[in-house]
């Protein structure tokens, strides 16, 4: 995607002058299409700095891979990608979304990773009616109380990933469990998802240890778990927190004595940093590296060839975002104006994803398989299909 230089419009220059003598950004260009069908403008609002940088990069890489596989054209139109760094800062979310929609005049906005940013983005997308594809942020609200026709999600709701683990533990007779999680939005929702799959079927939650986000001092929690001696411990941590918790768990000698389980984020893409401490940890997620679907094999090969490193679940979610946009645009021959038809096409789409085929729920959240995985020498290997076509209850969505 070559960024082409654009010329300056009189109207825009005056607007800029107005923004303030000191700002003096008069040279900001307008966007003009020169000849032929205008390019499809896709804006990404993803973290390209801060703790979630890696997720932002994985999603963007995989989405560009999906566009490349479509021959660089969607519904006959070339693609222009506009990347904006969300910095995972919610106060900036609404403004940066305005920038994508108001100034860059994009047809699709793809993002974010952080749930707080997702809330800000969704508010503007609902007001402006712009097509919004969420490739990661799992806040239940996005496909719950704040669901909207123009908002789709290709990742998961926080409720989903932990839910199947309840059944897995009960099938193995592990009834007494302790929950330990970061006590913020995603952590609470994931714990609730697990409880909904565990308690109604006879499971007993002995204790819930909530740790303030983003603290990473786990010694006191590990000591408490050791004294309670539960059958298993369900945890929700991601990124740096996941690396540290797994290493502390092993260092405290609990590895092998008490079973450690959780949603896939505990070991997804961080096993290299966790080292031996991650071996044998079982998690449930809508993806695993060793899934033998043809789509997965080709995707992982293409990703490694293009970017020189293994793909992860965040890449799969970005790849599917690209496929979803492609499905929508091809259904309307690239006419982004025909929004209703495009939405109908995307709602009905069956995505042939590396994680296996999945369809869109009425609240626009993936109805997808969840796999039990186990870490074997650094790879999240598939153990079995934990739950088939699990759909988010989408409480509060009136769409």
């Amino acid at each position, binding site marked *: 995607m070559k960024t082409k230089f654009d010329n300056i419009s009189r109207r825009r220059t005056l607007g800029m002058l107005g923004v303030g003598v000191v700002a003096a950004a008069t040279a900001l260009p307008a966007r003009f299409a020169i000849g032929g069908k205008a390019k499809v403008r896709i804006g990404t609002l993803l973290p390209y700095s801060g703790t979630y940088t*890696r997720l932002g990069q994985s999603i963007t890489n995989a989405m560009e891979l999906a566009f490349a596989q479509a021959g660089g054209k969607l519904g006959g139109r070339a693609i222009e990608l506009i990347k904006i760094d969300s910095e995972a800062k919610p106060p900036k979310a609404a403004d940066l979304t305005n920038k994508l929609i108001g100034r860059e005049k994009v047809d699709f906005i793809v993002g974010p990773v952080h749930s707080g940013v997702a809330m800000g983005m969704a508010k503007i997308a609902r007001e402006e009616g712009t097509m919004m594809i969420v490739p990661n942020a799992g806040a239940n609200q996005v496909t719950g109380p704040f669901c909207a026709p123009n908002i789709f999600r290709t990742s998961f709701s926080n409720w989903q990933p932990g839910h199947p683990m309840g059944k897995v533990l009960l099938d193995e007779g592990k009834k007494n469990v302790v929950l330990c999680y970061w006590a913020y939005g995603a952590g609470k929702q994931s714990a609730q998802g697990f409880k909904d799959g565990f308690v109604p079927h006879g499971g007993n939650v002995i204790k819930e240890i909530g740790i303030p986000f983003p603290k990473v001092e786990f010694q006191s929690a590990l000591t*408490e778990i050791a004294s309670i001696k539960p059958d298993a411990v369900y945890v929700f941590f991601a990124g740096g927190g996941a690396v540290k918790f797994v290493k502390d768990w092993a260092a*405290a000698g609990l590895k092998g004595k008490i079973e450690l389980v959780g949603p896939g984020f505990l070991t997804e893409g961080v096993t290299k940093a966790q080292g031996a401490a991650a071996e044998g940890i079982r998690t449930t997620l809508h993806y695993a590296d060793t899934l033998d679907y043809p789509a997965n094999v080709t995707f992982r090969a293409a990703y490694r060839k293009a970017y020189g490193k293994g793909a992860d679940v965040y890449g799969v979610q970005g790849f599917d975002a690209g496929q979803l946009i492609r499905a929508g645009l091809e259904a309307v021959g690239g006419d982004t104006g025909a929004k209703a038809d495009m939405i109908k096409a995307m709602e009905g789409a069956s995505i042939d994803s590396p994680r296996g085929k999945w369809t869109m729920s009425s609240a626009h959240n993936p109805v997808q398989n969840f796999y039990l995985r186990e870490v074997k020498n650094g790879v999240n290997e598939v153990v079995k299909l934990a739950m088939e076509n699990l759909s988010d209850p989408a409480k509060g969505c009136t769409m």
Partner: protein
Amino acid sequence: MDWLFLLIQTLNGIQYGLLLFLIASGLTLVFGIMGIINLAHGSFYMIGAYLAFSFTQMTGNLFTAILLGIPVTLVLGYGVERVFMIHLYKRDHLHQVLLTFGLILIFNELQLMIWGGDPNGVPIPDVLSGSLPISDTLSYPVYRIFLSVVCLVLAGSMALVIRHTRVGMRVRAGAANRAMAESLGVNMRSLSAIVFSVGVTLAGVAGMLAAPVETVYPGMGEQILIISFVVVVIGGIGSIKGAFVGAVAIGLVDVYGQVYLPEIASVAVYGLMAAVLLWRPSGLFGRT
């Protein structure tokens, strides 16, 4: 809650406190003794951790990595002092806040460009990777005990140097009254450069030592920045003993809060600081 549980939790609290003292030690020097509000303290901690990560990958051993890392942080600290901080000694705190805020932005971006965005881990050196069993299910990582010992040694030596050596005396004199110290023949220009670069190195070494028990990821600096200031301020500015007691107090409050009062765990530390400052407006051992 039997007594063993309480004992172990207390040990956890003290160990976390000692780690906090190690992390805040650089700031105790730069902010506590020299009175420079250095918001970039977290960035030096992060740079130290990333240096440990890279050199451990190269040499395979954490200790050689630290030995390689120390000169780098010394040069970095000296450079930052000579280029930037030198202009700020006569300026008020606010200009230090603004300049070091700018440094945070630059260091964060440089880190991303050099090391990228992936969270990394640094393996614990084999000799210290064992664990001591203390109950049938729980055992205590040897490396954390090693860290606590290092903290105690560091605290002792810092107090010794600052309290009982000529260099320490000059540093304290310079902090108390820079102009007077200069007129008494103390070469404050070079002394400030030395103290600042030692402060930066302490922050870097803290990052290197903590790397095996922490995760090395972009933005790790901001996580420890505020808690480091809290440690220095609770103890009382300019007092090494105060920072030590402050750190251990925070460690205990944090752990007990986590275990016994989980709902207010996140605000417990800030509540402690507010309470201490309202009871003794210049910290536990601070000079007014």
